[in-house]
């Protein structure tokens, strides 16, 4: 156990690519946690996807031993946080385990919306925020401008902000000094009943669920019987330890300390992130604040291309969920796509990551339906039903109202793009609220936008209209009634549920035209004419036709050609296997993906 006064618990808050993982690498190196020999880039990002995309999905933690100039030894616990809006719940849990936060800002790009949102989370959580400007070695670096932006947000003096280069190591020692000086030591009561916050967990196939915990009050010795204050379940602390970053078991974790806990539990749901663990006998009365169930915001159906892979998909989802409690799913059947699962995700990135992991790590070929949000349907009797799939929307006669989720959106952008952004927000049925300046060149716009609009391409369009300079963050902002209709797409007269969408009445025509047009170019010509229609209820709003194919024959097939032509046709045949039969219409897998792609021409 470490003396409480010598512990500093902190996170690094940074936008994607602002250098958080590089700084973490440098801190590990400076404190000797990782020898230069073992240094590989982004030590803390362990998942392949994290390294490839340069983002952090799961929080990580590492204990660093730091000796200051006076020869005093400190324990620094770095709790890494995810940097994407989809994972803001995980960020808030990580921050709850800290007393301080390093706010890391790119010297060229300046403050970004997510950084700002997370900085606000840190301030609200009472953390000491230490700003640092990174990448000062870049040619495009403008630390003075960025310092001005930071002062506008946090106050203070521009000269007080540390300038560093995580890449070269410049300024890192100064940053460590401030960390020790400014971040308060943990304040918990070592003699009070045990309260430990679970701020993250993952599933290890050998050890079961491994929890990352922060002991707030009391002491957690190995072997302790502990009780989950969220579920009431009792577990044994079979092993506790710290990460240096290699796991090292210890006999005790005291107040203020951060480490891991293994109880032998195999199901990740049973010890939830945000839960408070206490002594099973000498229990605390109040749990630590802040536990809430992660709430999926975006829904999509995932279907195996090959119907025989349904069981494999189920197993893969079960395994992924072991590590990702925020992933929810239930079986769904689609007339067009067969059996699959309706999955709920924290956001679009989360959705994309899950799909990529399923395809890559579990070797599945998947079709994903258009992302949707959860609508609230008021029935004529006044009861309210939540629907997550367009198929479930009752006919307009059978309901008295539909409400859709809104998000409060914060957009940070150079001032020159304010016009295009306002236009974009309005086009997406958004309402523009406050506008405030972070500096002469940067503006913060607050808007309320339907989540469905965010899901359908808003972010990409924002990026393209602002040449990538604007950034976006959002939080749920309740439900609002709207004039929504379900647009069905019919292939050869049969509705294809995968293409149905709930859209605003004013945009139904546009959606119908876009979908029928796209499908006409994506569906290969068949033996018959294939009409493609968009309809609201029984009313057609758009129609296209894929004309029947007329010629599909090799001109010559003589003695010299038999084997070659056979191989050629066999190859074409393999290509056809990737088609889904929708009624009697063959639809290529790619058509589902491409038709549902969200992009600018929408």
């Amino acid at each position, binding site marked *: 156990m470490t003396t409480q006064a010598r512990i500093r618990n902190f996170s690094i808050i940074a936008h994607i690519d602002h250098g958080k993982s590089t700084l973490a690498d440098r801190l590990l190196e400076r404190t000797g946690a990782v020898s230069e020999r073992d240094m590989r880039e982004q030590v803390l990002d362990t998942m392949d996807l994290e390294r490839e995309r340069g983002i952090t999905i799961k929080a990580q933690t590492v204990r660093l031993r730091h000796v200051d100039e006076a020869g005093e030894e400190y324990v620094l616990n770095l709790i890494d946080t995810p940097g994407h809006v989809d994972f803001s719940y995980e960020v808030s849990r990580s921050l709850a385990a800290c007393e301080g936060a390093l706010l890391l800002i790119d010297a060229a790009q300046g403050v970004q919306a997510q950084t700002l949102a997370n900085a606000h989370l840190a301030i609200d959580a009472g953390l000491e925020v230490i700003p640092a400007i990174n990448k000062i070695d870049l040619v495009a670096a403008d630390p003075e401008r960025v310092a001005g932006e930071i002062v506008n947000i946090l106050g203070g003096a521009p000269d007080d902000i540390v300038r560093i280069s995580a890449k070269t190591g410049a300024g890192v020692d100064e940053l460590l000094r401030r960390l020790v000086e400014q971040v308060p030591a943990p304040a918990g009561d070592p003699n009070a009943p045990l309260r430990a916050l679970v701020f993250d967990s993952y599933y290890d196939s050998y050890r079961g669920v491994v929890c990352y915990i922060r002991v707030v009050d009391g002491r957690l010795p190995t072997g302790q019987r502990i009780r989950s204050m969220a579920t009431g379940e009792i577990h044994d602390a079979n092993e506790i330890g710290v990460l240096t970053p290699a796991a090292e078991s210890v006999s005790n974790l005291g107040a203020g300390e951060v480490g891991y806990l293994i109880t032998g539990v195999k199901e990740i749901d049973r010890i939830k992130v945000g839960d408070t663990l206490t002594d099973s006998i000498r229990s605390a009365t109040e749990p630590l604040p802040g536990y809430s169930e992660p709430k999926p915001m975006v829904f999509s159906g995932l279907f195996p291309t090959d119907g025989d892979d349904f069981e494999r998909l189920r197993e893969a989802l079960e395994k992924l969920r072991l590590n990702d409690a925020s992933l929810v799913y239930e079986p769904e059947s689609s007339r067009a796509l067969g059996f699959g699962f309706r999955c709920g995700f924290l956001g679009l990135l989360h959705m994309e990551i899950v799909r990529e992991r399923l395809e890559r790590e579990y070797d599945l070929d998947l079709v994903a339906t258009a992302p949707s949000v959860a609508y609230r349907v008021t029935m004529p009797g006044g009861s309210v039903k939540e629907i997550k799939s367009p198929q479930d929307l009752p006919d307009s006669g059978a309901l008295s109202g539909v409400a859709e989720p809104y998000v409060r959106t914060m957009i940070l952008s150079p001032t020159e793009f304010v016009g295009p952004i306002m236009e974009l927000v309005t086009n997406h049925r958004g309402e523009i609220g406050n506008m405030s300046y972070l500096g002469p060149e940067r503006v913060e716009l607050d808007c309320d936008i339907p989540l469905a609009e965010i899901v359908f391409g808003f972010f990409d369009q924002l990026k393209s209209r602002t040449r990538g300079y604007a950034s976006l963050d959002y939080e749920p902002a309740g439900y609002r009634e709207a004039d929504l209709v379900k647009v069905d797409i019919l292939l050869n007269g049969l509705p294809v549920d995968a293409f149905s969408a709930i859209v605003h009445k004013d945009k139904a025509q546009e959606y119908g035209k876009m979908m029928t047009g796209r499908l006409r170019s994506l569906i290969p010509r068949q033996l018959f004419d294939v009409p493609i229609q968009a309809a609201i209820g029984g009313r057609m709003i758009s129609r296209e036709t894929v004309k029947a194919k007329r*010629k599909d024959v090799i001109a010559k097939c003589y003695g010299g050609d038999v084997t070659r032509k056979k191989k050629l046709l066999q190859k074409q045949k393999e290509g056809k296997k990737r088609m889904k039969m929708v009624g009697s219409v063959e639809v290529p897998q790619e058509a589902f993906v491409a038709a549902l792609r969200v992009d600018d021409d929408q």
Partner: protein
Amino acid sequence: MSPVDAHLDARSAYVHIPFCSSVCPYCDFAVVAGADHMIDRYADAVISEIGMSQPWGPLNSVYFGGGTPSHVPPSVLGRILTTLQDHHGIGAGAEVSLEANPEDFSEARAGELSQIGFNRVSFGAQSFDRAVLEALGRRHGPEQIMASVAAARGAAIGSISVDLIFGTPLETDQSWAHSLLSAIEASPDHVSCYALTVEPGTPLNRAVIAGAAAPDPDVQADRYEMAQASLEAAGYHRYEVSNWCRPGHECRYNLTVWAQGQYEAYGNGAHRFRDGVRSRNVRRLDAYLSEVAAGRRPIAGAEPVTGWDTEIDRLFVGLRRSAGVSDGPGVQSLVGSAEGKLLQEAGVIEMSGGRLVVRRPLLTDEVHRAVLGLEAPIGWVEPPTPDNVW
């Protein structure tokens, strides 16, 4: 047994002559231009290769294809033909075919070739429209086609065929109608009409990739229908996807292939089907020559066709014929399959008089892909094959 299936019992031989005066931009066969100095060496190699093959008994048909067989001196063709005669024997009344370019076919040349023993000539006419001929890289004009057909007739060559290519991007409906009428006017016994196909690796393909117009399949479908209407009206019946003829003038060598009959093959890039094995020769001319010079058969690869594959193969080659294929386990399997049902509903295939026929030949590949996916019915047993068919 339908007469077309009788060719199952035929014995045929193909001889590849790769030499051309120039290579046409659409051609993806094993051809060579500007290599005339190698003709004699090549003929010697073909003669050696014939000697290395198992003697077979009299051949029912012999086919010299290319390349441009008419580009090499008749004496060279004669030496090869004599070798085939000596080695296997050529049956009385056997069909002996030669592919020829109109510009090579003077009256004197026609007489020589007839004398040597060729009784069928297939002319690479391609079009009667000068602009189309030029686009196709051909070196002859329409008048030479007329003259060469007349020369062949004059030399009493008993069966004359004309090949046409349709759907070249600059061809119009009028131009195609004119080519068809001219071909009919030349009065051959047999007409082949091929849709221009952009084959990978050809100059045509490179041009298309670079932005040149590609043949339009719908336009080609229209042109095909024009061909069918004109030729049928002029007394030519269609007996295969791309082949029409007057009664009795079907190409016997090709009928052998489509009936799953056996054929030997000699020359670079040549393919054979013998004793249940489909095999092919090395394609490169130099590699072919050195293999044969080393005393080896110049085989590049071989696939035995056995068991259920034999039935699939029978449908694959046979369904290109208008007469289709006789009933059998593969046919039953196809008509009972989901794809087969769809093809029947769309009028692409039909059971007729105990045979399965393709009614919409322009969609034959759809049928073929379905055929290639067929699996043996449960309980299917390979019929016993006689030890020695021949």
